[in-house]
């Protein structure tokens, strides 16, 4: 399926367009998980009622979710145009109550516990609803993430999938340099009772395979190798672009590069 490539090109362009309307925007964290959120939301989740749950635990990556929600008509174009303005309803972090937003996130290390609660509630109800939760590698440094991982496995939440946007960056530095003991990741998840699959987080086929490998009997982790700022050469692996809007010239170059992908 090549649709994902064209969708993601469109999403990146849209995010760059919005970046020109505001002084700052989390571009790189959204570009890091563009393909991940696309494949989960547009191909993996069931959207007929009762709809599967998508929870963006790395709240700062929410631009990719916003543009997908707008494309699907859950949010409006006006919502995107009024991003981070007093007349709008979309902020730099997702806010529960806004259509399509499963939880208010932004402070890291909260989403997985909430997702576990949502997944457990669906288990109690006997529903077939699945919960997909995107976390950043950085937020896995929070102890609360491991509390949630332990409980998800204790409760055998086969309806919960955690997708790790493993871009090797936290706010300050490269994770692998500043926190070498954070690795290896997959063995940690396995030892906590999760099934684990790895993938190239920018390759739709690889993502699909990793998502599909859940056995449905225990929580499933997809560790996706990603590039922060993916798609724009001067943003890739550059933490400067964690929260910054490009200048006009940078915007023009970024658009050119995104169009070529």
């Amino acid at each position, binding site marked *: 399926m090549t649709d994902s490539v064209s969708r993601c090109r469109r999403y990146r362009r849209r995010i760059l367009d919005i970046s020109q309307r505001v002084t700052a925007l989390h571009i790189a964290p959204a570009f890091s998980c563009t393909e991940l959120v696309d494949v989960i939301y547009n191909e993996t989740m069931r959207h007929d009622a009762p709809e599967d749950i998508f929870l963006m635990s790395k709240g700062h990556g929410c631009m990719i979710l916003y543009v997908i929600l707008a494309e699907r008509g859950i949010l409006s174009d006006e919502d995107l145009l009024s991003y981070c303005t007093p007349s709008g309803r979309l902020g730099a972090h997702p806010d529960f109550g806004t259509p399509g937003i499963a*939880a208010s996130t932004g402070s890291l290390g909260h989403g997985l516990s909430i997702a576990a609660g949502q997944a457990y509630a669906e288990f*109690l109800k006997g529903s077939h609803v699945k919960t997909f939760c995107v976390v950043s590698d950085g937020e896995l440094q929070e102890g609360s993430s491991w509390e949630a991982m332990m409980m998800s496995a204790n409760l055998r939440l086969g309806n919960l999938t955690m997708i790790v946007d493993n871009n090797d960056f936290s706010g300050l530095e490269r994770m692998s340099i500043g926190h070498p003991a954070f690795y290896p990741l997959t063995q940690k998840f396995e030892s906590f009772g999760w099934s684990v699959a790895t993938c190239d987080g920018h390759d739709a086929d690889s993502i699909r395979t990793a998502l599909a490998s859940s056995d449905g009997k225990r929580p499933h982790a997809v560790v996706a190798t990603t590039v922060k700022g993916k798609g724009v050469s001067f943003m890739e692996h550059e933490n400067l672009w964690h929260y910054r809007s490009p200048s006009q010239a940078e915007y023009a170059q970024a658009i050119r590069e995104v169009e070529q992908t």
Partner: protein
Amino acid sequence: MRNRFAETFFEIATNDSRQCMIVADISPAGSMARFRDEHPDRFINTGVAEQVMIGMAAGMCQRGLRPFAYTIATFALYRPFEMVRDDLCYQGLPVTVVGIGGGVTYSTLGATHHAQEDVAIAMSVPRLNVLAPCDPLEVEAMTRWCATQEIGPVYLRLGKAGEPKLTEHIAQPWEFGRVRWIRTGGDHCIITYGVITKMVVDLSEELTSSGISTSVLTVPTLKPLDYEGLAEALKSHDSVTVIEECVPRALGMEVQSLAFRIGYGGAVRTFSLQDEFIHCYGSHSDILQAHGLSLDRIIEGFKMQTK
């Protein structure tokens, strides 16, 4: 209080499959153990892990369940404070956080187990409703209300065990957001809440028998505060005295502020826990006394100022 809470929850949850209990490694006594045995799916022990206890409660509530998150007050409110704030209050979810041993009830366990600031902290968080029952009857009424209300998150501050019934013969039922008169007709009003209400009733009787007639008002709902009811209490008494098992920035400060706003002419006294960690181990009243909350000291202060 603990047992009455468990009995009431058991009764409600038996008939309402949305009700869930999430605890963090606290032994389920009495009816709580029975609930765990009869409904193991709706009794979750997250272990020594309070952040996931609150986070999961939020997620379960978002999907239509009615969770109570239950553990010792310090661990229910302080340890997962940001989860209480963000996951419950920011998202506006009707989850009840039950803190056992509010104040300095765990009097032999040291300050790690003293929730001496819980009410002040809880009152400062937007949307968090704060309840502190004074006896098992209020515990029951509040638990029933918490289980089905749609207003938002609640911090329910309980004592431990053995608290006497104080509101059995009061005509006015407990009502969310309303103050309650335990004793009326005095010249001076004593305002309190929670476990120490029994001590305050004893105080009131002693003062009254020594010629200083006092009324006793409880404030079971610390937030939202019943400003109207409190203002009435001020206006109808020559002085008011707030006695609370909390550091100084809770009800006492609110009443002082209210008195200023309405131009109250009487004296306003406040007695609270000290803004200090007290390294003292003993009975509940020993710790209260070490903080300065002793009957003798309060009576002495009262008599000096009412002369």
